[in-house]
């Protein structure tokens, strides 16, 4: 448990430190400190994962040493350990990119990224509904602050994001209040056996669900996401799409798979799954028609979250443990792929001096590495073997196909695959256009391009560790 706490505290400390030091430190050193702390946090998360794997069950910590029921509890399950690791890894990859690419980044990015890391770590570890609310707020505020990093043009989307995020938090909070009013508990694990399918519980769950869905931009509550993610600085977009939207999703998962009575979960499941299916198609279609690169990538997030939502919905409907594995595999694979996609999109955008998809003509010649990263990461989103996306899709498909009455859901997966292929290859195909090449700036940033490729390669490598991941998620998932 201490490793997990360390993994949580180190980014927070270094964030505070960076804020404190301000301009006393040079930007390079700021970046170095942030990356170093992320690296340490990554190592700690790895040890935490080992610890929980060795224990074979999730570890609980009563904060303040108070008795169970009074104390806020932290929980280190193999899932949360994995997510800690994943968060640190993403921060490391994106931090490296932000630090090493030529354009550099606003120095405030480093403190905010540390804060974001800490907030997410706090979220994964928390097992208390109100504590989760605060982590949600932390996450939302940091995310908005990071969107605002890119300057004036981002203020308006950021403002919308913030307002909706606040409203969503309040929906969640009202639900928490109702649950507390009904059961007098805030602890997830204590609440879980006690919940009944009465009106208060239903209302509370409904409110929390809508709030969380709005926060993690699950269809149909995704409208804020594309402008916000598209207008953020490149590294931030990658963090937002890859990580931030997964936080509320985690809470949603905790809520329905643990807190809610199974009967209710079975009722809501199909709704979520259908929403997921529609998200896959609608988000994909929007991405396909999107004129600007980053908006395309952002809509792709909306679409890909549909997979997760579908997995969640079906997990609830059938109470199948494989779906749980599929859900988190999707989250991880999407995170890595999306990071690569955003970094590549950003790099191409800056190298080619255009934000429009149409400006990518000839990108395979002019910015080959970045374009390759885009395509490789896109391959994982489509679910081409042997990528992480394929792994997740495979795990999702297995239970869908085992019973003929479940086959319509598989149709959704099929549709999602096709639509993702459509929007990814729309870009890729265009990049082969040699007729009207868009010339790049004189000296494109090679380092940045290669760093954009890194997460994409990792997500394709993920397939090789598939067995390990699946066992991990299947073992001490809850």
């Amino acid at each position: 448990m201490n490793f997990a706490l360390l993994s949580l505290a180190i980014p927070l400390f270094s964030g505070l430190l960076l804020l404190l030091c301000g301009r006393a430190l040079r930007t390079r050193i700021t970046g170095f400190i942030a990356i170093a702390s992320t690296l340490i946090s990554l190592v700690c998360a790895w040890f935490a994962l080992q610890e929980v794997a060795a224990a074979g069950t999730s570890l609980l910590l009563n904060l303040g040493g108070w008795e169970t029921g009074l104390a806020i509890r932290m929980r280190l399950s193999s899932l949360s350990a994995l997510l800690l690791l994943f968060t640190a890894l993403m921060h490391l990859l994106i931090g490296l990119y932000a630090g090493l690419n030529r354009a550099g980044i606003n120095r405030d990015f480093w403190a905010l990224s540390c804060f974001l890391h800490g907030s997410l770590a706090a979220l994964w570890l928390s097992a208390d509904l109100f504590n989760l609310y605060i982590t949600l707020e932390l996450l939302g505020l940091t995310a908005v602050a990071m969107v605002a990093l890119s300057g004036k043009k981002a203020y308006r989307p950021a403002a919308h994001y913030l307002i909706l995020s606040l409203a969503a938090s309040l929906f969640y909070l009202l639900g928490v209040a109702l649950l507390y009013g009904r059961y007098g508990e805030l602890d997830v694990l204590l609440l879980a056996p006690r919940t009944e399918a009465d009106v208060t519980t239903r209302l509370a769950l409904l409110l929390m669900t809508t709030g969380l869905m709005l926060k993690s931009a699950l269809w149909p509550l995704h409208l804020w996401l594309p402008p916000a993610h598209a207008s953020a600085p490149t590294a931030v977009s990658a963090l937002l799409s890859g990580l931030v939207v997964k936080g509320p999703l985690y809470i949603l998962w905790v809520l329905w798979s643990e807190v809610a009575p199974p009967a209710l979960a079975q009722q809501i499941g199909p709704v979520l799954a259908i929403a997921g299916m529609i998200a896959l198609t609608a988000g994909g279609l929007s991405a396909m028609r999107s004129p600007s690169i980053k908006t395309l990538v952002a809509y792709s997030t909306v679409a890909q979250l549909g997979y997760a939502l579908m997995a969640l919905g079906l997990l609830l409907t059938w109470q199948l443990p494989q779906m749980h594995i599929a859900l988190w595999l999707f989250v991880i694979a999407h995170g890595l792929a999306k990071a690569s996609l955003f970094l590549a999109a950003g790099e191409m955008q800056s190298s080619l001096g255009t934000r429009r998809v149409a400006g990518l003509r000839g990108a395979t010649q002019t910015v080959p590495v970045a374009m390759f990263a885009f395509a490789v990461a896109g391959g994982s989103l489509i679910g081409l073997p042997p990528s992480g996306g394929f792994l997740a899709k495979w795990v999702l498909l297995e239970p869908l196909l085992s019973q003929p009455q479940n086959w319509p859901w598989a149709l959704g997966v099929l549709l999602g695959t096709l639509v993702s292929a459509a929007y990814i290859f729309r870009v890729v195909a265009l990049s082969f256009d040699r007729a009207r090449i868009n010339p790049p700036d004189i000296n494109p940033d090679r380092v940045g391009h290669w760093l954009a490729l890194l997460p994409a390669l990792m997500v394709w490598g993920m397939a090789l560790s598939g067995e390990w991941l699946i066992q991990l998620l299947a073992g001490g998932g809850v």
Partner: protein
Amino acid sequence: MSAELLPDMTLTLLLLIMAWGALYAPQRSDAMALFIAFGVVVALIWARLDAPDLALAEAAIGAGLTGVLLMHAARALPDELHRSNRTATYWGALAFAVVASLMFLAHLLTDDSLLNAGLLDTDSDVTPSLRVLADANVADSGVSHPVTAVLLNFRAWDTLLELLVLLFALSGLRQLFPRESAPDDHATSRWPESLALMSAWARVLAPLLVVTGGYLLWRGSSAPGGAFQAGSLLAAAAVMLRLTGLLPALRWSSVWLRLSVVAGALFFLSVAAATAIWGDGWLTYPAAASGLLIVSIEIFATLSIAITLSLLVIGEWEDLRS
């Protein structure tokens, strides 16, 4: 309906009218005013519901700081932003809202209603609840006021994160002044002259607020009050002084400012880490020193809250970037 409900009914009606007005008043300035009034009424309701801590906080925050914020906004934003919104969307939305309300009410009134489903049962049914445990453990918490005990001991982790919320909001705010060099059109006195009239009051009021804040902080461990309330009051004082030009611009370049902004969270986090490393666990105070620790945390937190809130409300380029 009993007469005892009369004040409650009045407050309810008042609140609803103000809420409606704050949303739909034709003039935005009216809407803002009504929103500030709404804060006052809410504070009254808190008092009515035996929540003095909240009433204090609401008074300081809702009415005071929010008022200044809105005034700032009123000046900064052109009026034409406000347009008539009686569109089809409006009516559609209204219809939806009505449907939702009706559904909600229907559930409220049916047998299986919210009110009958345990929400309003007495706590005797709800055992063993967090609340019971909290009440039982106040004695061990190092403070006697239960709210403070909850805030700074039982749920200290929440509070620590909450300090971070303030900090993060401030970090976000700093991003709105992106340029590293001073803006050309920077106006040192962007506040209207009329506020200068306040300066006389401010000279009197500000020390009073500071004293009250200190008192609240000190009182917090045993009675309603505490770091947040104190911090809000101090922030209000600072804002007032700043607006009347009595307080010089705070400068981000000053390490003291940065330190005081970070102090609360940093100290709290250090305590947490220290307890984890040398003590019994994350945020587990040693029994003997818990009172002392809580007070020191409160002091640091108050400082941070006061400075951060004032910066959030009136922070300008020179405060946040210079």
